[in-house]
């Protein structure tokens, strides 16, 4: 079953007095998140992966294209159905209202949406979840300022889990934490995925982390989805030149530093200007995602033309 579907989703931000400044944060991205999977969305800063995450959370409407949550449009979802999509942000220090105690912040959504009837059931559930995320119960009477980043991230995950979501959009949840804490949070994600069977859209630029967690990976570059496939395919058999560069950088292999050169055209492949394998068609036409394997799609002309992008 498909939890979340993107069809040709584009998000354009306009700036300036006459709205002339135009930034295509996401351009014609199509992908789907399946039930109970972890999907890793990767890309460099500014590649549009966080924007896509916000669209998935219903926080930003797409400029064009269609997004479906379990087959429904956002406007057709009731507030309770919308609770099934939850997010974890990269800054755990900011997600809790500094004026409220953690106990209040955790029970607030349950109260507001009247998910549990009596107080006893609620405190039992909160206790249970706190145990799962491994945080002491006396945290409930503390303020967010009294916690470390790692603890706050656990609490943020706890608050989200209390709502029984079927998909969690985790936008670089470990970026602001130190390495040992990062590992703990990753394990926590793995554990809740196994125990709760929740699908996770994991947005990150950290390849080893994503490769260890995700079943499928999508690579974004400059707002476009350039390659998508199973983790195995992407890590062992990457076809797009950008994915290869990305993997090489992540593995700290030596790679040719990409040289920016004039692409000569603005309607061709977006990667044209730094790609080292440009052929004529790259400057003429934007590549579409092409299926190259059962679980592998690439947006590169070289794959289509049989060149296969093989690099000697």
């Amino acid at each position, binding site marked *: 079953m498909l939890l979340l579907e993107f069809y040709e989703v584009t998000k354009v931000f306009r700036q300036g007095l006459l709205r002339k400044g135009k930034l295509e944060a996401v351009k014609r991205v199509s992908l789907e998140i399946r039930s109970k999977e972890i999907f890793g969305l990767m890309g460099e800063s500014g590649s549009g992966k966080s924007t896509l995450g916000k669209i998935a959370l219903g*926080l930003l409407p797409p400029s064009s294209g269609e997004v479906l949550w379990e087959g429904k449009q956002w406007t057709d979802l009731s507030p309770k159905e919308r*609770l099934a999509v*939850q997010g974890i942000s990269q800054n755990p220090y*900011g997600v809790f209202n500094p004026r409220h105690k953690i106990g209040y912040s955790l029970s607030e959504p349950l109260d507001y949406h009247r998910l549990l009837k009596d107080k006893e059931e609620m405190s039992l559930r909160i206790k249970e979840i706190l145990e799962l995320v491994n945080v002491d119960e006396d945290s409930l009477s503390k*303020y967010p300022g009294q916690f470390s980043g790692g603890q706050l991230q656990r609490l943020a995950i706890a608050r989200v889990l209390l709502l029984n979501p079927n998909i969690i959009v985790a936008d670089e949840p470990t970026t602001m934490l130190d390495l040992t804490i990062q590992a703990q949070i990753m394990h926590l994600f793995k554990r809740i995925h196994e125990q709760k069977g929740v699908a996770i859209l994991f947005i990150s630029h950290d390849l080893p982390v994503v490769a260890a967690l995700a079943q499928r990976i999508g690579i974004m570059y400059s707002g476009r989805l350039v390659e998508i496939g199973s983790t195995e395919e992407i890590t062992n058999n990457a076809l797009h030149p950008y994915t290869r560069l990305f993997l090489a950088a992540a593995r700290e292999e030596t790679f040719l530093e990409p040289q920016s050169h004039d692409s000569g055209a603005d309607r061709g492949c977006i990667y044209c200007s730094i790609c080292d394998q440009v052929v004529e068609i790259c400057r003429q036409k934007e590549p579409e995602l092409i299926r190259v394997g059962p679980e592998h799609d690439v947006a590169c002309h070289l794959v289509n033309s049989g060149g296969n992008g093989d690099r000697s």
Partner: protein
Amino acid sequence: MKKYNLIIPAVLLVILVLTAFFAPYLTLHDPFAQDLDNRFMSPSKTYLMGTDDLGRCIFSRLILGTRVSLLIGVAVVSINTLIGTLVGLISGFGHKIIDSIIMGIIDILLAFPGAILTLAVAGILGPGLLNMIIALTILGWVSYARFVRGMVLSLKEREFIESARCLRFGNIHILFKHILPNCLGQIVVLSSMDMAGVILMAAGLSFLGLGVQGSFPEWGLMLNQGKDYLRVTPHLATFPGLAIMAAALAFNLLGDGLRDLLQGEEVHFN
């Protein structure tokens, strides 16, 4: 050090509030009783602050005047805070068009010289306690609205508001449970500072004959009645002046102290 900043205003305030509360029990003489045989008496044991031009006990009148000044201050500041905060919340959180309209009105109101407009309104409405309160609130709320709007605009971008949206809370809930609690501290500081201004302005209006009138023991009015005898018997105007100063000082210091306290808190939270 910060903790001690609040001691002086706290002591002053406690004295003021207790005085206002127990005013009828603290007066030594009937504040309204005229005694033409004992006019312009200097401070003595029977008349702690002397008597005025009609032989009324200045001390007793000051005591009762505390009630009037605090009442006006509290009434005006409460109304200002309430209206200003509400308008600011709506303006900052509402749609861009609503925000533009409200801010347009506020900018127009702010373009008036405040004191003159207050004087004009007080003049049109005529003297009296209620009219004075109306005159002081007509422009008073504007600065609150601007201030609160600014805070809402910056709070709106904070991460916990985005998470609140993810948790699918309604706008009203987000506004009153998440944004307002984060503004309250600053609003209290502003109110405290404003209180000082309102007490001064109220005394000023009464002094000019646009506020409370007649034999009512209002500090500004007493100042006005004493000013004619300033060279002969300066205590007639001095004591009311000192009372006004003490009240204004107390609220200003309170505002300063609270602000320092809040700043410390902000550091702690971020």
